[in-house]
């Protein structure tokens, strides 16, 4: 066998080359100002990368879309306060409250956003603009189960037995559904004992608990489950993949959550971050994001709703949607997570 020989000179060159290769991405990145924007993985990530990158580029900046769930974004920013890994965060009011409490995000300067006045005042948050409103409900496969009327139906109609999937309390979609179920079966939106009791009485539902909505979408595609709690965007994505999926607004009302972009405290590239925010609320972007497979509800007043979105919700219906009390949820969430995880594990 041939021996492996290397001279000291060659080894030195190899080491220098490796060091240069490692340093290369950083020097390349330092050349132009790049907004590092956290977005939800999957549908959001694909859409934001495709639609917003060219618009941010037109404004003279680069955009790096970094996929992370809202809770993960919080955890990562908390891990390095003052030196955040992202310039902007994408989250709902639940996580926004935690971010404000921990001094992780800052108030924005609306004068830096050209499209600010295109937003309805309800979407002009002092900590950042609302880019869409996620309307939640129930996704189902019409080939496997009938259309559910609401949450009660899922527990009482035998047609759904063994085919419903739930997530834990860490998921916003999950916690909004549980708040509604608590209202139906308990004394109010925070009466989770009633929800835990309901699951104990219907142990077949505990078998379908998984970690996240993304995981549920994979199981839905494989025909493993036929029903899960979702946003309209989840169903739009499944339909775009050619799957039989329909969205149902529960008879008790659809929980909804605005999704906002926030500027992190200590953001390294604030100008690029503002360019990204401005692009996200622009007519040009939202005209594209309202189309399948994302079908995001536009917050820019100049953007017309598509028939597909109007089938889920019209602008005048926004006020009548169910907006959870995130302060109450955040106060109890840790305990609910622990209790539910223990219940699921048996």
């Amino acid at each position: 066998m041939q021996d492996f020989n290397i001279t000291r000179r060659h080894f030195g060159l190899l080491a220098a080359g490796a060091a240069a290769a490692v340093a290369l991405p950083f020097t390349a990145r330092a050349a132009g100002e790049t907004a590092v924007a956290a977005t939800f993985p999957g549908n959001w990530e694909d859409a934001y990368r495709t639609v917003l990158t060219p618009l941010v580029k037109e404004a003279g900046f680069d955009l790096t879309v970094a996929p992370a769930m809202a809770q993960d974004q919080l955890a990562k920013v908390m891990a390095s306060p003052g030196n955040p890994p992202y310039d902007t965060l994408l989250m709902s009011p639940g996580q926004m409250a935690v971010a404000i409490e921990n001094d992780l995000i800052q108030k924005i300067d609306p004068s830096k956003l050209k499209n600010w006045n295109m937003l309805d005042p309800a979407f002009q948050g002092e900590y950042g603009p609302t880019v869409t409103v996620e309307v939640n409900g129930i996704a189902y496969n019409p080939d496997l189960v009938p259309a559910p009327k609401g949450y009660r139906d899922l527990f009482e109609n035998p047609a759904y037995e063994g085919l419903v999937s739930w997530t834990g309390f860490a998921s916003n979609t999950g916690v909004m559904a549980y708040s509604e179920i608590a209202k139906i079966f308990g004394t109010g939106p925070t009466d989770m004992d009633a929800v835990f009791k309901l699951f104990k009485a219907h142990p077949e539902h505990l078998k379908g608990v998984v970690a996240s909505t993304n995981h549920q979408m994979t199981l839905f595609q494989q025909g493993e489950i036929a029903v899960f709690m979702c946003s309209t965007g989840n169903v739009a994505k499944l339909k775009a993949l050619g799957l039989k999926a329909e969205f149902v607004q529960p008879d008790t009302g659809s929980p909804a959550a605005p999704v906002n972009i926030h500027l992190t405290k200590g953001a390294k590239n604030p100008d690029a971050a503002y360019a990204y925010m401005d692009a996200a609320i622009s007519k040009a972007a939202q005209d594209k994001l309202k189309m399948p497979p994302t079908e995001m509800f536009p917050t820019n007043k100049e953007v017309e709703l598509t028939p597909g979105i109007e089938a889920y919700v019209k602008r005048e219906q926004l006020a009548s949607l169910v907006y959870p009390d995130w302060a109450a949820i955040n106060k109890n969430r840790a305990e609910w997570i622990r209790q539910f995880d223990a219940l699921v594990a048996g």
Partner: protein
Amino acid sequence: MKASGFPYVLPMLLLSVAFFATPLAVLVGFSFIGPDGPSLHNYARFLGDAFNYRVLVNTATLGLQTIASTTLLGIPIALFYWHSGKTARQVIIFLTLIPMLTSNVVRTFAWIVILGRQGPISETFVALGLAERPFTLMSTELGLVLAMCQIDLPLIILPLIAILSRTPVQFTEAAQVSGAGPWRILVTVLLPMMLPGLLAGWILVFASTSASFVTQAVIGGARNVYVPQLIYREVGTLFDWPMASAIAVVLLLSTGILLVAMTMISRHRRLVGHA
């Protein structure tokens, strides 16, 4: 005079201190942060909850089940390799290594298809009349062990192959000539010979399985909770890092104890004496 080897290991030593020992010390330090200053509060909270005990036992059991299944599958494959010609050996090595070139995440998602209602396992059982209707092995411990077994199988096959390739096949012939039957050869000649490889493989498989967050979460679902998921929950959802650190230290110690026990058993003089 023979030069000391210390300068050669110095860079590795410095890297280990900087990137392993220091973070580990920080982790241990964090675990003692209590609400009112340094204390054993997090450990008391973790060990005072029966649910957490069960999670610890589940994690250890999953590791041992995967060790058992990979060993049962790995030994015949390694012996087949030992008795094969050059081409067959290359094919076995190729088939062993090729899954390792695929991401663990991709392999895990492939198992969703295999274990699902419409997957090959369910369809074969229904076709053979062994099951009345399609069934799923997703979110079951059996499904998880099957997936882990496939994912970690190379970790036990490769050390075994490394040992057997240095051993002449004539060993078994000598045992046969001495009158030993196939089972006796396996128990008294082959297994003791393979023991160092098995030990290395067991340690790798156990460490990989007990820390395999993605596969545990995706295949095991929320019903089968293991320690890595608890740590993730504390870090990413509840933001209770001191608690997460305490759980990580408990995982480190408990798996460490099991690995030391395995090492001690395999080095027992009665076992080594056969080699």
